[in-house]
């Protein structure tokens, strides 16, 4: 199964990249996605998570073709 992972704003800057691709064999959670793409660091507090542009919790299970996003608190308006 393949997913796209995206990063935005300060998180993107701190990581030094705006996306990753990830292949995995069995269904995993959003928290496990982070562990795979960013094994060297814990997910920052307050990080928001979305799958296919909907907010989800870290426990949400990811499926083939999903777009997973990690980003800091939003500051629009």
């Amino acid at each position: 199964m393949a997913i796209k992972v995206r990063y935005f704003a300060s998180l993107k800057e701190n990581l030094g990249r705006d996306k990753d691709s990830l292949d995995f064999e069995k269904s995993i959670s959003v928290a496990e996605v982070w562990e795979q793409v960013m094994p060297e660091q814990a997910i920052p507090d307050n990080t928001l998570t979305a799958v296919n542009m909907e907010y989800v919790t870290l426990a949400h299970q990811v499926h083939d073709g999903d777009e997973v996003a990690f980003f800091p608190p939003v500051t629009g308006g």
Partner: protein
Amino acid sequence: MIKIVSSGFDPFQEVHAYQQQQQSLAGKYGATNLFIGTMRDLNEGDSVKGMTLEHYPGMTEKQLARVVAKAGKQWDFLDSLVVHRVGDVFPDDVLVLVAIWSVRRGAAFDASRFIMEALKSQVPFWKKEILVDDNSRWVEKNTDGY
């Protein structure tokens, strides 16, 4: 209607034009509330000379549509217009416009304020400020507007 724009816009022209175009509104609305968010030249005590507004294309529109739909379930309004700027902005530039048309004034005030609060806490936009010394910093958190 929901619009994400990457260049400057005049909120009064936007509302006027939209209102003219929605001919079914004529004579039916008694109340219009507009909220306009504008870039200031000062934030948290520091002079700010510019800002970059980043967003998550696609999710932004989806979440904005959800916010407007939620407002529509709670209050009875006839129409709404939300315009949000992205990209590079400067002091005095308009960042966001929310306009609500309703029969009675309570719904217009309530829905407009609800949409602004929800937008600021739920819709994926991020502000990065450029200070006068050319240092830049991400705005970390929006304050509560109530």
